[in-house]
């Protein structure tokens, strides 16, 4: 395995782009999920869900390429950027309330992901 010093800026950039695209995938899945109140068939007849899935596929392609050019311990924390994006979008697009529990929970989760990345590195 390559050491942390071998993680290229390209890999870090790719991961950041991937996390950004992935968070928008989640936004479209959430927007499409509202349609399910009209029936389960809208799981499949749903352009927003299809777009969400496509964005997820695109982001995972970026991840896979990036992971070949870097060390997990450096890239893992960057992967979790998507959780921060998602929090911002959920406030912006769905008017969800940002509570103290959400910040605290997310902070613990981010720290956990950093630790697991360090444990693997």
């Amino acid at each position: 395995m390559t050491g942390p010093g071998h993680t290229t800026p390209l890999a870090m950039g790719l991961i950041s782009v991937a996390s950004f695209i992935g968070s928008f995938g989640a936004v479209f899945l959430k927007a499409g999920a509202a349609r399910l109140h009209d029936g389960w068939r809208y799981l499949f007849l749903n352009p927003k869900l299809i777009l969400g899935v496509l964005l997820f596929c695109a982001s995972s392609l970026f991840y896979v390429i990036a992971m070949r050019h870097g060390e997990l311990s450096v890239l893992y924390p960057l992967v979790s950027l998507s959780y921060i994006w998602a929090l911002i979008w959920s406030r912006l697009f769905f008017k969800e309330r940002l509570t103290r529990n959400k910040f605290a929970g997310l902070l613990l989760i981010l720290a956990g992901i950093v630790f697991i990345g360090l444990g693997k590195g």
Partner: protein
Amino acid sequence: MSAADTTTTVPGHGSLSRAQTIGIMFLCTLLGATAQIFIKVGANGSNVGASWTTAAGVWTNLFAMASNPHLVFGYGLYAIMTVLFVVTLRDEELSVVYPVIALTYVWVTMLSVFFFHEAVNWFKAAGVVLIVSGVAVLGKDGRK
């Protein structure tokens, strides 16, 4: 869109209880982790080595992936996971459900110790504890 869609609880088609939603989210992360294990096994034993930057290389790689049972099964699990994820998003906030998906890290870490005999260390143990507590804190909120 009817006016009913703007209220907090919509007794729509087959509404799920909170417990059901939590169960599905749990299953979702477990499936995601299992998918990652299969994809890792599949990737190790596959010949997905062609260039991703040329059209011919992409087709060669996609064909190699489609003829690899582990990869196909892994991505199939991802598909099921995505459907379940969407189902939970119907009744829950994105800002709660999305971070909960981080439980996948916990399962992957545990399954990797079991299947790939990866070493356990304090970093991983601390990470698992932190993520689980984070999810528990998030779970105090909820419902859109």
